[in-house]
């Protein structure tokens, strides 16, 4: 750790998902807020170990989907019934049945965009620069190692205590991450 700049955080490395999960439970119970774990794949049960709430992506998707359904029906009503009615085959100018397929597809289209964009917005992505991505060892987070980072910005962060907490949690390797 260089003395001048304040580091971004303390990086703890673990070899197994179980070790990481135990550590996450300890950090959660110690009351930290600005911390995170990094894994090569989603570890099931980790949300609970970290004390995360249910993701809110669903609302974005729901909003997109309902917009799609409404827009689809309104569009067809406006075009085929209101603006330029064309009688075809004795069928009603507007019917919820014949409008259904298109409105349904638009529901799904906008719902899907809602899900993807909701995920990106909630995750603050894309973000092409991140202190961790500059750290050499951290590349293994997408390979086969498991990491836990406590940021120095956390209110409860104390250089020595935080370090001891992570050591006690069984980290195989502790390093500072430059900001």
């Amino acid at each position, binding site marked *: 750790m260089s003395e001048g700049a304040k580091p971004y955080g303390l990086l703890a490395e673990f070899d197994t998902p179980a070790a990481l999960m135990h550590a996450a*439970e300890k950090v959660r119970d110690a009351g930290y807020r600005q911390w995170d774990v990094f894994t090569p794949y989603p570890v*099931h*049960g980790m949300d*609970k170990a970290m004390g995360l709430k249910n993701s809110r992506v669903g609302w974005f998707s729901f909003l997109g989907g309902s917009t799609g359904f409404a827009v689809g029906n309104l569009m067809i009503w406006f075009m085929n019934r209101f603006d330029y009615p064309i009688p075809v*085959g004795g069928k009603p100018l507007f019917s919820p*049945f014949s409008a259904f397929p298109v409105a349904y597809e638009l529901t799904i289209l906008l719902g899907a965009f809602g899900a993807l964009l909701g995920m990106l917005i909630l995750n603050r992505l894309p973000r092409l620069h991140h202190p961790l991505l500059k750290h050499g060892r951290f590349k293994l987070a997408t390979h086969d190692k498991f990491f836990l980072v406590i940021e120095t910005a956390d209110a409860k962060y104390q250089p020595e205590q935080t370090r001891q907490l992570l050591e006690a949690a069984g980290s195989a390797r502790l390093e500072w991450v430059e900001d």
Partner: protein
Amino acid sequence: MSSSPHIPNAPPLDLSRWRQVPNWLIVGGAAGALLGLVLSPRQFGYSWLLAFMFFLSLALGGLFLVLVHHLFDAGWSVPIRRFCEHLACLLAPWLAVLFLPIAVLAPTLYGWMSVADPHADHALHAKWPLFTKPAWYAVTALCFGVWWWLSSRLRYWSLRQDQTGAPECTYKMRRYAGGGIFLFALTLTLAAILWMKGLMYHWFSTMYGVYYFAASVWLTVATVYIITMVLKRTRTLEAVLHEHQFYFLGSLLFAFTVFYAYIHFSQYFIIWNANVPEETFWYVIREQGTWFYVGLVIIFGHFFVPFLALLRIDLKLTFGWMLPVCLWAWAMHYLDLAFNILPVAHPDGYPWQWAWLDLACTALIGGLLAKAWLKSLHRHPPYPLRDPRLAEAMGHVHPVASPISGGEMDETDELADAGADGRRGAS
């Protein structure tokens, strides 16, 4: 099971108060049905057919769940398989015997049987020889024969595995399921066509078998959810159940809600859009009088209500929420079958004056089947004791990733060595 809605230390549910219910149903139902039979044999026949097709759905659905359990080599559904086998075994002899009133009254129920000269009626002439009395009774016998053979063989090997634990039993059941699924599809389609679609024999739709199938499995999954829930509360299945069973059953119910809507919408939509008179008349009749409102109730109640009710994951596990949803499914399926069967006798609208007879027939058949099913349940072990997939179904840590490990539900799991341990079922 930290988020499980039940309280682990609550005393087992005491059902002794309810023990007499099947008897009351039988007595009350029999009285009503007899009165109806005296007043109007024809109306009794339609009410009986409606009640019969309703409970046939349940038994066929049970058979289907058992068949797919074996075909998919499923793990999670082991604990609920035994009582599904009992449901399937209601097909014969119970439902076969209960079919007798329909067999006797068939000439008054099915218009085509009383057509004076079948060859003068083109729609009937074209269906020769299927739409002749001998063929109709023969196909009926064939259906019950197949169902009896399949359901009893599957239960036989399942019970046998309780004693031997031999993998051979699993293979046997899989083999029955393999051939059985074809027979199942064939007989279910024939039954739906001959017993229900044949009421209006001028009408035809290739979807009809799938339609009855989708509705039947939907009803069955709802029923299985209630039964599993009750058997958990009475501690009969408590030891082998995991939260996943409820979650998967809830998801299946949701899936079949959508599947049924898809099937029925497709059938209606294609007929509506093509506008061929030979087909539209069936729906035109069902837009007369109160049938129109019944149709609307089916659109909203059979699809939108359960669809919205089952959308959330956590609600699929909340018994207080699921119980009314499942009971609602019963009402909707009953109404749907009434929509299919009754307009042939009452084209002007639902016959309110005969509602009591519909209920009496349903109560009688329901009471008898409930007694039969309960008897089977008490006589045999409540779940397959030595099924090779039982450990997996209970959610034990498994060397291979399975449908039970992973997914949203694991958010509720604690680590194996951090408290509530992996042997949760054993306590």
